[in-house]
């Protein structure tokens, strides 16, 4: 192993071999997979519903739109802080008034519980990104040609038919691109985990970013963490490639 600051011998693939045999690496991938598959579909569904509500005739839409941007534009570290306060120990607003009052969880903070800490992080993510989904889907919905909707109305299509036969198919490419963007972002989540659980308890919320951070800057296993960064980056690059191709071909974007 190479100590920090000194140049070691070339070690070939050994850091990658170590990585493959590291249970924590596989655990971190599993943690992130669970996190993504919990948070993103909820954000997607709620975001779509919210976008359709925003698309109705409502008062003061111009006021709500910018306000709804606030969570997704906030520093992720502040998002972590916000929920640390909301769910703090036994006195946080939600931990006392909801979790304790309805006996959802006793004895520990939600971020210290093995079963629920990851779910809590996913809920934080849902809070932060659902409004963003609402707003992007709304923007996408607004850009659809009015003429088609007029024609559907003239033909006597019901609201349900209009949604399933018109809105949904027309918005599919856009939703694919946004969904992918969210998957990418959800996979790399670091700041809020750092703030709320630091990957704990144990390794139950240790995402790849969190693990790479601990490996490199707490245990100084630079070689192994660099190997991990390369692997993660490669996976990302592949997902980005799909994002780019879909956006370019189907959305005529970029």
């Amino acid at each position, binding site marked *: 192993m190479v100590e920090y600051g000194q140049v070691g011998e070339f070690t070939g693939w050994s850091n990658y071999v170590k990585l493959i045999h590291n249970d924590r690496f596989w655990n971190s991938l599993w943690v992130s997979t669970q996190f993504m598959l919990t948070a993103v579909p909820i954000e997607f569904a709620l975001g779509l519903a919210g976008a359709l*509500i*925003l698309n*109705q*005739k*409502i*008062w003061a839409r111009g006021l*709500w*739109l910018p*306000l*709804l*941007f*606030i969570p997704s*534009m*906030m*520093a*992720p*570290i*502040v998002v972590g*802080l*916000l*929920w640390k*306060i*909301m769910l*703090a120990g*036994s*006195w946080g607003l939600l931990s006392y*008034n909801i979790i304790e009052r309805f006996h959802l969880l006793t004895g520990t903070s939600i971020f210290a519980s093995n079963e629920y800490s990851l779910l809590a992080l996913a809920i934080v993510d849902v*809070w932060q990104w*659902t*409004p963003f989904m*609402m*707003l*992007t889907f709304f*923007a*996408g919905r607004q850009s659809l040609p009015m003429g088609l909707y007029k024609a559907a109305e003239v033909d006597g299509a019901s609201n349900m038919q209009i949604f399933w036969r018109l809105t949904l198919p027309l918005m599919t490419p*856009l939703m694919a*691109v*946004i969904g992918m*963007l969210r998957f*990418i972002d959800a*996979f*790399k989540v*670091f*700041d809020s985990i*750092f703030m709320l659980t630091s990957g704990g308890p144990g390794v139950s919320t240790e995402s*790849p*970013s969190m693990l*790479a*951070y601990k490996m*490199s800057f707490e245990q100084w296993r*630079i070689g192994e*963490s660099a190997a991990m*960064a390369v692997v*993660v*980056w490669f996976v990302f*690059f592949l997902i980005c490639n799909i*994002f780019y191709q879909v*956006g370019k071909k189907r959305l005529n*974007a*970029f």
Partner: protein
Amino acid sequence: MNSFAFDFKRLLWSILIFVIAGIVLFPVFWLLIMAFKPDDVMFARPTVWVFSPTISHIRYVLDNGFISYLGTSIALGLVSTFLVVIIGTPAAYAFARFEIKAKDDLFLFILGTRMAPPICLVIPLYLIFSKIDLLDTFAGLTLAYLTFNLSFFIWVLKSFCRDLPIQLEEAALVEGYSRIDVLLQVVLPLLKSGIVATSMLCFIFAWNEFLFSFMLGGKAIKTLPVAIPLLITSQGVRWGELAFVGIAALVPVMLVVFVLQKQIVRGLTMGAIKG
């Protein structure tokens, strides 16, 4: 449909949006409350809603280097954004207008730096910076911020460039303008609003950034987000102070959100949605 029924429907949808926005914004409002809540009622069970506000948290934060964190954050944001605009504008224009070898691959590679988890960049940058004495320096951190902001800027500004009518530039070229003159005199004025919007987003991303300044700024260069974990000490967590720093970090975000509105969609989707 009579007008009363119409209004009733509108009222229902409006109330629904009001409730949604309330749920979304309530934690932010609670953060604001916590910044002024005295310590003796902060941990009270049941939750105390009415109290006489205190400024002791604000005073503590101000006495403990808040102004210098704030200054660092603003300076770092402005300098890195300025560099991004200077380097990124011609790059975005070139991507939009020129035939470049392997342009798609290059463009995708740029996206890769933006999309990769920050930790993937921080580990190599830490090692490189430690060798060339850029660790814990303002210049080093500025360079590090370029990794994500420059790629973001080029991506989004390219989508603005693509929207410009190419005929204007062609006409100017026929008139004998050089490419540089076309960029400076024809394209820039048209791109101005795009540049302003995108650079404001860059400023916010720099402002919000945590891991880079936490790892590469060390003890010397501390930004506002880095001040947050510092208030979680071994003697205990300074909740009120944390809340105040959080609120302070939100101020420019609020401003930008209201100024930009629609361009944010375009920015946050990397130009995939025109907004």
